[in-house]
């Protein structure tokens, strides 16, 4: 029997639709879900995917993919492959499983929403394939992680993370709620299939596979690159949706793409950046994170967006500058706050590794070298305690990642500057200017409070780091720690070191409340000198500026910023405040930003 060619019949089946007789179309596709906006409903009839697949083709091909992936898994399971993997690399996979496995499940729901409310038959049809794809991804990620749970409980966080109040889980829920759960399907198709899947997931699923294979993790490389073959198909829901929206409402199309591009870029900097530039063993790194971003996002994806008629986002220069800084600061932050994560971050700053970083990122030594040097000297002095966190990093109200992006002034000084706005009676701080702008434009949709917001609101009991770890669901058997300090610190052993934190850090706490919550606490966003991050500090209205300065300094001085043994002072709005002034007299409000620096560095 000769079968008809697909082209001879698919026109009849791929665009099947109902003729509504008892209800009108708007009732079937309520605007809140279908999101047609300014686009006339008829316009969606032109929706056509380029990458056409029929159901029999889909089933046959997916079956082949599954067989191939599970065959490799079975053969690897019989080997000692996992035991032989570098601990740093394993961390890249643990991070992946935690952040991705149940994120894929959120994507199942997102695809189902498009399968129900998509405004064209072919679109709904593609979304049905898409939800089957995402179901496969959620299954595969949880199943692959499961194999290692009995050997290492950190793998259990593939299932656990999203159900905790871990700060990364809150950040991911915030990201995916906006991208998938709360969006109408038009915005959803632009945010998830178009921006996230045509663009950014390529970094974590294809580019990272290159590092995975080189690092000897054949199983993981095989699995993630197979997943992305599904994305390559169902992500095509984005193109035709964008095309129709651009014709009728180009301003909306540009905004939705821009904001999700930014959110994706921030998320990938935290996830893929450290995996590529630190957790992958040096000898196995195929390219730097920046080089992979240039290949996949700038050369491939952004050019596609421009060909489709979009402009570069308004924040383009800020994004490009961030390629040299964001993920380095995030790596440093993940390492410092390692008890809050479910993997074992390697610092990866041996001399050879630093030479590689400096070659790939000319500003690396200037921005991060000295901070790591202070950490290294503390480790070599036997004072690992001084490298552990003493408070929370201040988290950005938009992306929920630490405010840790240094920028350069006209005079050449690199500092993590404050980007803030006041809304609804509260001062918000942001990691970048674009995060601030996105918050302002989207402010009515901002519902997820950061971990710092929750701490300040009194949701965490007891209100200290131990309480925070408990709130986040971290138990001692899972909390992250560097698996091998010697591997990177030994290169520097024996060199003279000054300006380190004194041992047993809490005993140097000069704060009048002795680390206990004040009766009337004032929580501030503070940064010490050129430290890499803003942190939360808590003082009382009667604390003097001398006391406030000491409280800010104790979280950073001698820990990441070399202590100078000189007088320090509080600076607000570029002005030094008198040492004996109190917090109340200075008019400092809750969540205000303060800088503490050495007096000699303050302009008179």
């Amino acid at each position: 029997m000769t079968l008809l060619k697909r082209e001879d019949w698919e026109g009849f089946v791929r665009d099947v639709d109902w003729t509504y007789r008892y209800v009108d179309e708007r009732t079937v596709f309520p605007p809140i879900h279908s999101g047609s906006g300014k686009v006339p409903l008829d316009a969606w009839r032109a929706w056509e995917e380029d990458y056409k697949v029929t159901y029999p083709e889909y089933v046959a091909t997916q079956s082949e993919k599954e067989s191939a992936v599970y065959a490799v898994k079975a053969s690897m399971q019989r080997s000692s492959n996992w035991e032989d993997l570098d601990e740093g690399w394993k961390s890249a996979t643990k991070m992946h499983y935690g952040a991705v496995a149940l994120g894929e499940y959120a994507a199942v729901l997102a695809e189902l929403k498009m399968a129900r409310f998509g405004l064209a038959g072919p679109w709904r049809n593609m979304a049905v394939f898409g939800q089957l794809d995402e179901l496969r991804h959620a299954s595969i990620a949880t199943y692959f992680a499961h194999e290692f749970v009995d050997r290492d409980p950190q793998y259990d966080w593939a299932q656990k993370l999203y159900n905790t109040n871990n700060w990364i889980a809150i950040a991911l829920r915030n990201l995916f709620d906006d991208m998938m759960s709360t969006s109408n399907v038009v915005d959803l198709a632009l945010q998830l299939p178009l921006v996230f899947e045509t663009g950014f997931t390529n970094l974590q699923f294809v580019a990272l596979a290159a590092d995975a294979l080189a690092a000897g993790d054949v199983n993981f490389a095989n699995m993630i690159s197979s997943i992305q073959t599904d994305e390559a198909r169902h992500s095509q829901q984005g193109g035709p949706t964008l095309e129709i929206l651009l014709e009728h409402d180009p301003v909306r199309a540009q905004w939705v793409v821009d904001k999700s591009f930014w959110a994706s870029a921030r998320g990938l900097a935290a996830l893929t950046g450290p995996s590529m530039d630190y957790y992958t063993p040096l000898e196995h790194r195929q390219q730097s994170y920046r080089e992979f971003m240039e290949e996949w996002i700038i050369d491939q994806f952004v050019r596609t967006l421009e060909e489709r008629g979009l402009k570069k986002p308004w924040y383009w220069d800020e994004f490009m500058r961030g390629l040299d800084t964001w993920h380095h600061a995030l790596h440093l932050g993940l390492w410092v706050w390692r008890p809050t994560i479910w993997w074992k971050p390697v610092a990866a700053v041996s001399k050879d590794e630093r030479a590689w970083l400096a070659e790939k990122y000319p500003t690396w030594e200037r921005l991060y070298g000295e901070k790591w040097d202070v950490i290294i000297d503390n480790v070599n002095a036997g004072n690992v305690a001084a490298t552990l966190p003493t408070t929370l990093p201040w988290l950005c109200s938009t992306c929920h990642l630490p405010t840790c992006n240094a920028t350069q002034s006209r005079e050449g000084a690199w500092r993590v500057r404050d980007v803030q706005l006041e809304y609804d009676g509260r001062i918000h701080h942001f990691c970048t200017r674009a995060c601030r702008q996105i918050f302002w434009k989207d402010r009515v949709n901002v519902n997820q409070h950061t971990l710092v917001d929750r701490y300040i609101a009194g949701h965490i009991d007891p209100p200290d780091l131990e309480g925070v770890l408990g709130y986040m669901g971290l138990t001692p058997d899972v909390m992250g720690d560097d698996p091998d300090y010697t591997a990177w610190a030994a290169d520097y052993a024996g060199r003279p070191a000054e300006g380190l934190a004194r041992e047993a850090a809490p005993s140097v706490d000069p704060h009048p409340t002795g680390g206990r919550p004040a009766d009337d606490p004032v929580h501030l966003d503070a940064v010490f000198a050129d430290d890499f991050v803003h942190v939360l500090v808590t003082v009382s209205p009667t604390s003097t500026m001398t006391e406030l300065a000491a409280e800010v300094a104790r979280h950073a001085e001698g820990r990441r910023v070399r202590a100078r043994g000189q007088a320090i002072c509080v600076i607000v709005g570029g002005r030094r405040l008198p040492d004996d002034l109190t917090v109340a007299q200075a008019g400092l409000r809750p969540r205000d930003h303060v800088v503490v620096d050495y007096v000699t560095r303050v302009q008179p």
Partner: protein
Amino acid sequence: MTNLVGPVLRMGEEIEPVLAAIADDNPGRAVAVIDRGAYVRIEAADRITLTEATLRRHLGPDYEIRSFGAIMSSFRGKVVTTSDSITWENVADHTSDGVTP
């Protein structure tokens, strides 16, 4: 301006035969191959096409072109699939119905 288009293939045994098929189906065209181990990026200016008939010559008579979806992790430009061919071309060709002014 040169617009590069083409597939990104995941690790696997089919890569060499696919490259040979692409060479056959796109005679005289410069096709660049960037090999990063776990993936191979294949690029040419403006258009690459690949037919099932040619793939069968290199991968065996039973090869079905729909299986190409199992090895293509990503692609540059846009991809147009029919029952017996795959073509990668510029996104802009689509919006102008393939007519270049």
